[in-house]
């Protein structure tokens, strides 16, 4: 068994509000192996996007990390100083944001946003950085001279490709994709995911792919982790998960999904709605919506168990 690239243990992320703390990520354990594609699924508000930015420690106020370790290449990211973080960011871990329109600086060219990233980490001339920016754009299927364009001059799909080119600028070991295709139509989405997989094969980086589209993810990822109300419900290999999901929540999701390629539906097709994180139910957080719940589900917090080799679920009845 190889060493994990990223190893998260007992991670808790809180939002500090007037009415106390809201725990957006609760006691999370998760590994990302070198070169693998790990999918992270969950409904909106389940904490999956919080996780993405917590790893890089770029969550804006009022977020605080209140517990745990995030080990990456032998170091705990939660113990690094500001300067060490600044050096590590993008060089080793990069990210593609949900909406490239919002994530790209509207008043500077996309080329400049790539070159300043390169030059912040490597001692190269502007000319070299600029040439590399052109090559990066070509790599994701955009003509090199578009680096003189501004974000608003590109289509939605192109902007998202720019985001990917930017993420690959320094050849990082891990790329976090935070719902990179939600704003796009199905065809463009498919093209972009294909492209990411192709680039991943060439360059060998690991991917953490965050989405609310479980079907798309099962198809795209090697391994999948399912979030429910700030906690991990189930994690395991995609194949195993598709054929034999262990957690009632995952089963509900898959049943609710028409398994037709290209069909696009939101996860919220199970009766009821996810709980508010301000006031989550006691015991198993899924029990109010669970068809198999028994009395003890409302009081005992289920622990993650390895139900099959490499397949974990947080449900006492999972097998």
């Amino acid at each position, binding site marked *: 068994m190889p060493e994990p690239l990223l190893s998260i243990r007992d991670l808790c992320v809180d939002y*500090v509000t*007037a009415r106390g703390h809201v725990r957006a990520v609760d006691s999370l354990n998760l590994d990302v192996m070198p070169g693998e594609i790990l999918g992270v699924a969950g409904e909106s508000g389940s904490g999956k996007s919080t996780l993405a930015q917590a790893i890089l420690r770029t969550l804006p106020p*009022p977020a*605080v990390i209140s517990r745990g370790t995030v080990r990456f290449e032998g170091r705990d990211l939660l113990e690094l100083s500001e300067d060490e973080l600044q050096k590590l960011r993008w060089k080793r871990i990069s990210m593609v944001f949900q909406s490239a329109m919002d994530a790209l600086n509207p008043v500077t060219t996309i080329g400049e946003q790539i070159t300043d990233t390169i030059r912040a980490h490597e001692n190269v001339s502007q000319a070299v950085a600029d040439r590399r920016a052109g090559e990066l754009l070509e790599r994701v299927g955009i003509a090199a001279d578009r680096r003189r364009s501004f974000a608003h001059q590109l289509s939605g799909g192109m902007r998202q490709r720019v985001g990917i080119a930017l993420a690959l600028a320094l050849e990082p070991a891990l790329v976090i994709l935070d719902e990179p295709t939600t704003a796009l139509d199905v065809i463009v989405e498919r093209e972009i995911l294909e492209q990411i997989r192709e680039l991943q094969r060439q360059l060998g980086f690991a991917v953490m792919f965050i989405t609310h589209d479980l079907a798309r993810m099962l198809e795209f990822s090697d391994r999948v982790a399912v979030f429910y109300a700030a906690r991990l419900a189930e994690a395991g290999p995609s194949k195993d998960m598709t054929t034999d999901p262990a957690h009632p929540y995952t089963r509900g999701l898959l049943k609710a999904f028409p398994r037709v390629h290209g069909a696009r539906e939101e996860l919220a097709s199970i009766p009821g709605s996810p709980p508010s994180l301000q006031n989550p139910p006691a015991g198993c957080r899924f029990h109010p919506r669970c068809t198999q719940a028994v009395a003890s589900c409302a009081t005992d917090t289920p622990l993650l168990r390895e139900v099959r080799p490499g397949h974990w679920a947080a449900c006492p009845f999972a097998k």
Partner: protein
Amino acid sequence: MSAPDFARGNGLAAWALAIRRDRKALAGASLLGLFALVAVVGPWVAGDPTALVGIPLQAPSAAHWLGTNGQGQDVLTQLIVGTRVSLALGFIVGLLVVLIGALVGVTAGYFGGRVDGALSVFSNVFLVLPGMPLAIVIAAYLPSGPFTVGLVLVVTGWAWNARVLRSQALALRRRDFVAAAIVAGESDFRILMAEILPNMMSVLVAQVIGSTVYAIGAQVGLEFLGLGDVSRVTWGTMLYWAQNDSALLTGSWWTFVPAGLCVALVGFALTLLNSGFDEITNPRLQLERFWRVHLIRRGQLPGRSTPVVREHA
């Protein structure tokens, strides 16, 4: 609670909350209360501001705390008596410009289309015309006095409010509850009165406060130029006489310093009240406040990266 919910409903209630919670707002409100008190009771207790009480241009002394002016009148008495007209005119103009601004801006924002186009050009023209020279030209044609000063300040001051309130109305127009009222067939007048205006209450109050600051400052400026009624005692005419009697040449600073400071203190108090209100209604500042307190209690300073504040397990 999100920002629009906060802004919804009674603006005055939100203000009361701001004053109780925020130190700045409390300081502003107290200072303002003091001036209001002087404005109400001042003229009854201070005596005749135009009485000749001694030699002109006496420095402050036990007999005349703020000295005497170029005519030999008591500066402190003038200051106290002048508070009433200066403040009253400021507040009345502040109210009126917001009223007109609301009328024009909300009509434009709510009805949209050509009405909006015409009204927007109209208010943008008034916004871009330099207010002070226009006010002076108009005032010069009219008989001098507080009424003229008030009138020209309203004419030159409403456009900014119209612009802000138009965008407010435009945003509210797109909200669900307004759309529902329109579909339900309620009359435009009723929607404006029952749905739009109540939801802009806190913005309106903030604007009245901001406009009052403008009105007091501009009023003093016009009176300083001699466009007010120079025989009436106000802060502005005090400054007019100080300049006319060559206060600077004679070194009699006490003839102009007190009135200017009072103008600034009132403006400052109103601004504090407004910024205190912003602190508690601006959701970002509000969120950060508790986060900051949490960090500082654990002995950490807010940095650039997400802080790690370990729980005591």
